[in-house]
């Protein structure tokens, strides 16, 4: 049973470019959340997708957008890249009805983005 898979593993972009990161959730999961983890920091919530719609959003600008496909996979897009966007981007999947007392967020290994 494959867990959460993310691609690409690493990528380098220059300022002003656009990037797309991809995530396939764990089998059976229908909800995908994206987190940004800057170097030396804990992950910060970007947004969550369910039923192909953005359900909740953290404190990130509109340059950050996403999409969820009918097979529950998801993309994170970042436009007009800034140096400060350099980070590890983590995808986490869960069931819609996630019970924190028993359920679990499953994380991927992340995509490391470097903006030069």
């Amino acid at each position: 049973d494959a867990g959460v898979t993310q691609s690409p593993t690493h990528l380098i972009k220059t300022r002003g470019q656009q990037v797309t990161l991809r995530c396939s959730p764990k089998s059976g999961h229908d909800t995908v959340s994206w987190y940004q983890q800057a170097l030396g920091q804990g992950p910060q919530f970007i947004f969550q997708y369910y039923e192909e719609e953005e359900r909740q959003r953290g404190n990130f600008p509109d340059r950050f957008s996403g999409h969820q496909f009918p097979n529950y996979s998801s993309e994170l897009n970042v436009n007009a890249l800034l140096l400060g966007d350099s980070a590890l981007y983590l995808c986490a999947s869960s069931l819609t009805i996630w019970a924190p007392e028993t359920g679990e967020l499953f994380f991927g290994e992340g995509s490391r983005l470097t903006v030069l």
Partner: protein
Amino acid sequence: AQTVTQSQPEMSVQEAETVTLSCTYDTSENNYYLFWYKQPPSRQMILVIRQEAYKQQNATENRFSVNFQKAAKSFSLKISDSQLGDTAMYFCAFILTYNNNDMRFGAGTRLTVKP
């Protein structure tokens, strides 16, 4: 706003000994969950242990246990019989019961287990 603070950027422990990682949090809410996640060099976040705020009993998972002090808003992780494989970043995290989409993480503690 909910915030999580981990005041120990780095810690080390000898193999087989016990170490405690600290975490404090700030919230005005009463119903929430707390977690400790481990992030090894592979970068994948792995759930270590969780605690429901309404439970007074401290959670335990094998060699891992927590000391949950709700009034003090403190949630420390104790690792007993430390093993080399415990070397990793450890993140304390918080989530509200009614808004379980936005998990808040601390900045992490880098733990090194020395042989």
